[in-house]
């Protein structure tokens, strides 16, 4: 039975269901229970934004609060994954990858290949991504492209609670390391989410809006901004198809190419910085594989090549807006000479 619940509740439900199903699932991270060793209440926080709140009462010491030592506990989660557990490690903000990246990209990502196929590392690393929280340069980045670049890692970034629940359950059951990126501005977003357990395969995009004139490819928060842009475009008689990639590695090239072959026009929207981004990746792939279908140059709408600013005035300019997306889509429809 589906209910209208938040993205945050959907993630919490996914964790609850998988912990109930598989005793090898453990969760570890900073303040994921909260109040460890402190004089006040236990389960004080349930993670900084309360995503894991309440799980401690059900699963006790399968939730491990960690010291502020990302290298140690992300690495421990990876080591435990090699030894039969199925850890979900919470990195809190993906920006903190800087202090534990070696364990992710030189260890977890490489074991299977480097050891000749004989290792598997079924770990999920959950972390918040994205701007809009006035959290400034070190707590707001969309670092998805960095992880997508690394062979051996899978990268997921859902745009809504329904997808988040199904993708997280799939990620926990997956036998490869998965970076599960949660846009912090989406935690309050509500949609219909079934109560029961279900999975969504990694590497399957979702066409969230059909359209015949232009294809908008995106993921995460900017799915919603792209839909706003599509509504605005529709008022001018332009029908945009919006593709939510949902997972970035593996990525669903077929859905992207099928769409561009029908519309002939591509806009890629990425909250990441512009260089070596998901936007450039998708544009390059389409140019190389569907060049003859393109009626206009692909347009890329991304954050600028700057750190995330603090001041709300500046931060609002930083994140791709519906207006910028709509303008880019309109550009692809202008006659070539006028462009």
């Amino acid at each position: 039975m589906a209910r209208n619940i938040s993205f945050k509740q959907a993630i919490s439900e996914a964790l609850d269901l998988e912990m109930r199903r598989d005793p090898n699932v453990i969760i570890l991270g900073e303040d994921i229970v909260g109040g460890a060793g402190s004089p006040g209440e236990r389960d004080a926080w349930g993670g900084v934004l309360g995503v894991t709140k309440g799980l401690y009462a059900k699963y006790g010491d399968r939730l491990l609060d960690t010291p502020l030592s990302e290298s140690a506990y992300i690495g421990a989660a990876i080591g435990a994954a090699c030894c039969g557990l199925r850890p979900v490690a919470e990195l809190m903000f993906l920006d903190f990858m800087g202090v534990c990246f070696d364990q992710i990209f030189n260890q977890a990502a490489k074991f299977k290949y480097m050891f000749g196929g004989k290792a598997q590392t079924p770990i999920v690393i959950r972390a918040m991504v994205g701007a809009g929280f006035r959290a400034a340069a070190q707590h707001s980045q969309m670092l998805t492209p960095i992880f997508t670049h690394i062979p051996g890692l899978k990268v997921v970034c859902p745009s809504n609670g329904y997808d988040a629940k199904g993708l997280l359950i799939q990620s926990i059951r997956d036998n490869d390391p998965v970076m599960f990126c949660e846009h912090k501005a989406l935690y309050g977003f509500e949609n219909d989410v079934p109560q029961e357990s279900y999975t969504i395969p990694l590497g399957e995009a979702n066409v969230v809006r059909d359209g015949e004139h232009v294809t908008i490819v995106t993921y995460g928060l900017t799915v919603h901004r792209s839909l706003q842009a599509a509504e605005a475009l529709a008022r001018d008689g332009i029908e945009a198809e919006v593709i939510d990639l949902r997972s970035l590695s593996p990525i669903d090239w077929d859905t992207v190419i099928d769409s561009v072959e029908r519309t002939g026009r591509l806009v890629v929207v990425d909250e990441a910085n512009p260089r070596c981004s998901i936007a450039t990746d998708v544009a390059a792939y389409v140019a190389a594989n569907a060049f003859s279908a393109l009626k206009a140059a692909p347009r890329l709408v991304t954050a600028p090549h700057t750190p995330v600013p603090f001041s709300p005035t500046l931060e609002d300019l930083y994140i791709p807006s519906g207006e910028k997306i709509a303008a880019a889509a309109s550009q692809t429809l202008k006659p070539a000479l006028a462009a």
Partner: protein
Amino acid sequence: MSTNAFPLAKDDLIKSYRTMRTIREFEERVHVEFAKGDIPGFVHLYAGEEACATGIIMHLSDIDRIASTHRGHGHCIAKGVDVGAMMAEIYGKATGSCRGKGGSMHIADLAKGMMGANGILGAGAPLICGAALAAKRRGDRGVGITFFGDGASNQGTVLESMNLAAIWNLPAIFVVENNGYAESTSIDYAVAVDSYVDRAAGFGMPGVTVDGTDFFAVYEAAGEMIRRARAGGGPALLECRMIRFFGHFEGDAQTYKAKGENEHNRATRDCLKLFAARVSEAGVLSQAEMESIDREVLGLIEEAVVTAKSAPLPAAKDLLTDVYVSY
């Protein structure tokens, strides 16, 4: 023959000697073969340090996990990784431990509890905390042991992991293989404390320093720590002061060492000679018995090299396999 006064039965003494001799001959032979130019890449040899890996790993079984270093051949051999597959791996062959995809710095055999040699210094410490956590959850009395050099002892990963192991009371042992040199840089320059026992104390865990060329000293100190960890007593640190006979890597001119240092060490601080003298003087193992093992080991290494050289190279399609379980 006199009574065995050692803490190991004769069979285990033989196994220990064979393991140390196998490591030594493996490394001496790789040194020779590398100089011929047939072995690609970077190779870091463990010769001179055999008593450390062997003295510790003699206490372990396959349920116990170890994380090794860039200088990992000794740990692999002591943990029971197949010597022929190791040699083939070093030659980059399809029959290697990692099908030629890892090389000297990444030999692993998870079924044997060997979680990998590691090209990133200090990276094994967090991993072994995870192995120890898994063992603790299963309740199988398994332990996790991470080896790292005096160089990697300064890595944040090691220090963070010691803290984590202490607060979670993990069955984890931190082994500092102190050979005095971080690549070319002396421990006197790079490590701020005089004794690793002080570092252990800083994390609230016991620390012991032993002469890492003395197999029996290593064996006894490690045994105590491992028994304690298995019984729920938590982590400990073991510093083995030892000798690296070769350079940091093969090709290292070793100009940072004192003149005659290697020759002096080989003459006076060779852990195999020290072991042989102890057991033969005590009348527990005879020179003849050890010489017979030496011949056996030489044959094994010769066969490993011959087989590795003639083994097939990986196929072109192998480039693309084993990146993911599914993708």
